[in-house]
């Protein structure tokens, strides 16, 4: 299976509900630093990472989640499918987190280029981009249900 095929497959599995909703949307893919030991992560663990409930990787590197603001479609998909919440509730969560724990939401970057560059530069970074924008500078991991 080529890389392209793999990605489409995974995206297809993952985003099947969205597709099922009838809306034509490009699937997203979760990218990490190429040195990351994980090849796949469960959806719940992924949500722990992006909601900053786990701050370090098991080998000790700091978890650095990145939000891509430029693509609302991908963001929406990620919020609904991975975090399983709405945009409004997510906003409330961060307000609460910031007030009670001083934790900020993940940084937002303008587009896939910036996201890839950041992830490539930081071993603990993790982000999601449109699958078509994936290239060899980062490592894509599978999202298990």
């Amino acid at each position, binding site marked *: 299976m080529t890389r392209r095929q793999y990605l489409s497959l995974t995206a297809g599995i993952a985003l099947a509900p969205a597709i099922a909703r009838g809306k034509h949307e490009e699937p997203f893919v979760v990218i990490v630093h190429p040195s990351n030991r994980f090849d796949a992560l469960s959806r719940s663990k992924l949500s722990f990472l992006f*909601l900053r409930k786990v701050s370090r990787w*098991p080998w000790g590197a700091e978890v650095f989640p990145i939000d891509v603001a430029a693509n609302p479609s991908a963001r929406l998909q990620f919020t609904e499918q991975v975090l399983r919440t709405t945009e409004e509730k997510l906003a409330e969560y961060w307000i609460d987190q910031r007030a009670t724990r001083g934790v900020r939401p993940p940084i937002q970057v303008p587009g896939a280029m910036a996201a890839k560059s950041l992830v490539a530069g930081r071993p603990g970074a993790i982000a999601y981009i449109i699958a078509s924008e994936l290239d060899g500078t980062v490592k894509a991991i599978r999202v298990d249900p």
Partner: protein
Amino acid sequence: MSVRSPFRSIRTKFLTVGLAAVLLSGSVSLFLAAEEHQRFAQQLRSNAINIAKQTAFVVAPLIAFDSRDEMKKALELLRTNSDFAYAKVTAKSGAPIASLGDTPSAPCEVNGGLQVVDRGRFIQVTTPIMDGGETWGCLQLGISEERTERDASRLWAIALSSAVLIMLVTLISGAYLARSIAYPVTHLAEAVSRVERGDWDAQIDVHGRDEVGTLARSFRSMVQELHGSKTYVDDILHSMADSLLVVDSQRKIQTANPATYSLLGYENGKLLGELIERITSGLRRLDTVKLSPGESASGIETEYITRDGERIPVLASLAGMRGRDDTVICMAQDLRERKRTELELLRAKEAADAANRAKSAFLANMSHEIRTPMNAVLGYSQLMLRDPGLGAGAKENLNIINRSGGHLLALINDILDMSKIEAGQVALNPVAFDLSELLKDLEVMFRLRTDSKGLQFEVVVDPDCERYIESDKGKMRQVLVNLLGNAVKFTERGSITLRVSMDRREKGQHQLLAEVEDTGAGISSEEQKDLFRPFAQSQSGRDLQGGTGLGLAISREFVRLMGGEISMTSEVGKGSIFRFEIPVRLSDVGAAPEQMPNCAVTGLQPGQDTPRVLVVDDEPHNRGWLTGLLKIVGFEVREAENGAAAIQLWQDWKPSLILMDMRMPVMTGFEATRRIRAHPDGHEPVIIALTASALEGERGMATDSGANDFLSKPCPESELWKKIREHLGLSYRYADEQISQNMDSSVAAAAPLPATLRELPEELIAQLARAIRNGQKDRMDELLAVIGERDPRLARVLKGLADGYEYDTLTRLLDEARPCSKS
């Protein structure tokens, strides 16, 4: 510098300091050990917490990512800690995830926060495993306390052993210090207090070269020196024969030497601390004077009181003690022996004085008694010489008797004067008198003698010489008579000159200078120096076998008594000059009391009562003389021969005047006067005492017994009239012609007596001559009294010759007055 220290021995101080050091060091060590122990426990505890926190930090993502293998590896790493005991990770749900070691069965409380529990051998830390605000599980970590306990035990061991070591070291050094300092110092202190108590032999067995040793050596030598000086002072105090006391400001006796104790009869030491009043009734100076140091007072006669109460006279001297205010040193000398000696001397002197008085009295009495028989001796020898039938040999013998009698009489008179002088009974009796009168008398008196010896006699009176002067006339006269008498006696050829002059001195004082010059034998210079001593006679004086050798001695004493001095110059073969100088006072004529007596009393003024006079005397011729005189003047007179008779007569006859002789047999005049005065009417009569001749002491006795006044026997007639006039308030008739009341027998001889004598009845003259021949003195006095009635002046002159035993002259005069005399 003075260091006051509470009374604790040096040993106690050392012990206290050592104990404090031991306690301090021990407690410091133990405190430090406990601190360290605590620190160890704290460290272990914080280590355990750190390890737990780190482990929880590491384990948190491993639970999140469910990395069990990784977790195991992470727990295994804990074993590298040597104190690790066990670890257990439990999931949030309580399900065990991983464990290592001998884990406890207790569940891990996730919500309990960090807990630390001491489980005896372990410290268990329970901590929740958190990340990203999420609690992922619970960690139980056990850390062993074994190593820490072991370290703590070692620490305790070190601390205790070091405490013991310090204690030992302290004790050993304390013992050393005690031995090297405290023991010698204590020993020294004991020695000092023994010395203080007076144990000078106290041994000081402290040696060594340190400061204590030096101190001990210095102390030893100081004690020796102190002992030496104390012994020295003690020796002085013990050797003193006089009492010595030191009295402090509280008047307490501080020191008393052995002489004081033996003087006062107290046991040694009994007087210390006693008040000075216990042994003295009060040293005057101690009572009143506070002597400051250096001041002193000596020669204080006071008394000490012995233990038995006896008073001992002492001569005390006081001195303020140097360096101690108000402390007085009192030295006292026992005066008992001296007082005894003084008393003996006083008694001896009194005895000597009494003996001398007795001698004087004896001489006075004897001379008085001798005179009476001498009357007969001289009178009869002179009468016998007139017997024409007497052989030449018998005449010569009679002459010898006569001369010797005369000599004896002069001797008695001189001895009487001398004994009066020696007894100090010669008093100066200054009177105002006419000097020219006296000199005239003397000229008349001596011209008779010089004429009979064929000598020239000249009296030269300086024109400046005052006529009326005040001096002791009687003594001046006696001195001049003496000097002139000597001049006549020792001059065979040539002349005799009496010169009198006067020097004016200040304040009415004048110096009278009298000089008697002769051309006699002269006196050798060897003899001159003894000339004025009693019984010293010149060779020529002895050759002449006349005089007593008392004349010049008496003269010198009289001149001295009058405040002058007598001197002489002489050359053998050429003659001598005797001169004396005496101070005299001038007197005006009116004041001279001689005025009255100068005129002879011839009778009482008419119109007065005839006073009754009682004459009391045991000697008939004395009574006769007085009775004669008084009868001549006109008094009514009676006689008594002793005091008892006088009293009887006074009671019967009531005389207004009694002339009382004091010395009489049966009853003395003193006694009679006393008895009369004791009688109720005894104050009435005037009593004039006739005191025995020489003894002036009798006058005091006479007035003491009650006599109004006194007259000395034989008294000048003038004195008698004067006294009677004073006491009875009479007035007299006087003769127109002035006659010297003191006319001497020689003077009388020169007067033209035979003419007046011839006017007397022949019978009276014959009776008088007979009485003289028979030596009947009282008969003579009777006859003279009768003559006095006719011619008082003649009677006085004759009486003067009779009293002077000039019987030869008297007989010659009477013979001349009787043309029909046998001779």
